[in-house]
């Protein structure tokens, strides 16, 4: 069942600084700062290829990384959406 498609802002809209294993993001459109842990940066990176629903996003992530527990992608997307870093198409 295809779900909603998620969109992330282009990389140019977000300033990213790596800090000891985490990343701090400044999101220009909102002026807000977020401190994020994996897999948030990897998800945002994967969405740079274009909008994707959860299934497509998981395919993109599985192409680069080894992981289990696919269901957690929904919680991760929920957090990113609540922070305004991704939105639904």
């Amino acid at each position, binding site marked *: 069942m295809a779900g909603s498609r998620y969109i992330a802002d282009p990389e140019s809209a977000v*300033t990213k600084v790596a*800090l000891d294993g985490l990343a701090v993001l400044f999101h220009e459109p909102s002026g807000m700062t977020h401190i994020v842990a994996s897999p948030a940066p990897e998800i945002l990176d994967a969405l740079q290829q274009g909008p994707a629903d959860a299934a497509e996003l998981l395919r993109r992530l599985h192409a680069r990384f080894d992981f289990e527990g696919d269901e957690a992608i929904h919680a991760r997307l929920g957090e990113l959406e609540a922070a305004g870093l991704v939105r639904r198409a």
Partner: protein
Amino acid sequence: MRHRLALQIGPVAFRIGSAWRSPLDALARLYAGYPAPADGLCDFTVRLEPERPWRRFLRPSVAIRGDYVLPDAAPLALAHGLLAAEMGMNLQMALGQRTWLLLHAATVEKDGRAIVMTGESGAGKSTLAALLGERGWRLMGDEFALLDLASGALLPFPRAISLKNGAIGVMEAEAAADRFGPRLAGTPKGDIRHLRPNAEAIARMGEGARPALILFPRFGSAAAVRGVGQAEAFMRLTQASTNYVALGRRGFDALANLVRGVPALAIDYPDTETAVGLIADFRRELAA
């Protein structure tokens, strides 16, 4: 207003107006030796006003007003008018400062290297800073650290140090009597006495310093030191800043550069002398 005083503190000039003379007399004595603002131009205005017009005389009650105000602010008794003036200046900085990233922190400097000590009220920052100021360190400030957005340098903001309860006795044994303001008993914060920074701190109030160490001190446990990661330091400093969010991208860049360029430590300390000793150790390591 009826009575006025202008003060230059580091790079910030204040104009304090008051319906009563006594708080400004106390303020002028506390800040003896401070320069007046050049050309009389001021960055912020504080006004000490009666809560209601008739409260100027009848059970006089001082409302803290100025360029910036907070709702729900309760007035203070006239006997605590000096405290009202100090809180008023803090309020203008906390709400109105946009030129520098403001951190709620005490800062001391030696050999061009500055240590920034930040944490909740009651963590003991002011007392530590006051004591270090008497032990060969230059006090740059006990309330706010000013971080230059472009250069990453810290600028001095040497206000009178606010000592509470037990800390008053500690510092009375360390500093000359004429540097103290009156003892204000029974304020909403307990007993308070203000201590003027020493002559060196005042003379060098225009001189910045490079940050060399970020410290998160916590009073009340056995001595312990642990490293604080960059991301944790970043987060804690955003919570110690009243204008981080308002400064947008420039605030982000300045803070990210700070935590990447400067180590951060958390220390627990059972008494101020122990903390002073720990900090002396850090300084030796930084200088090595």
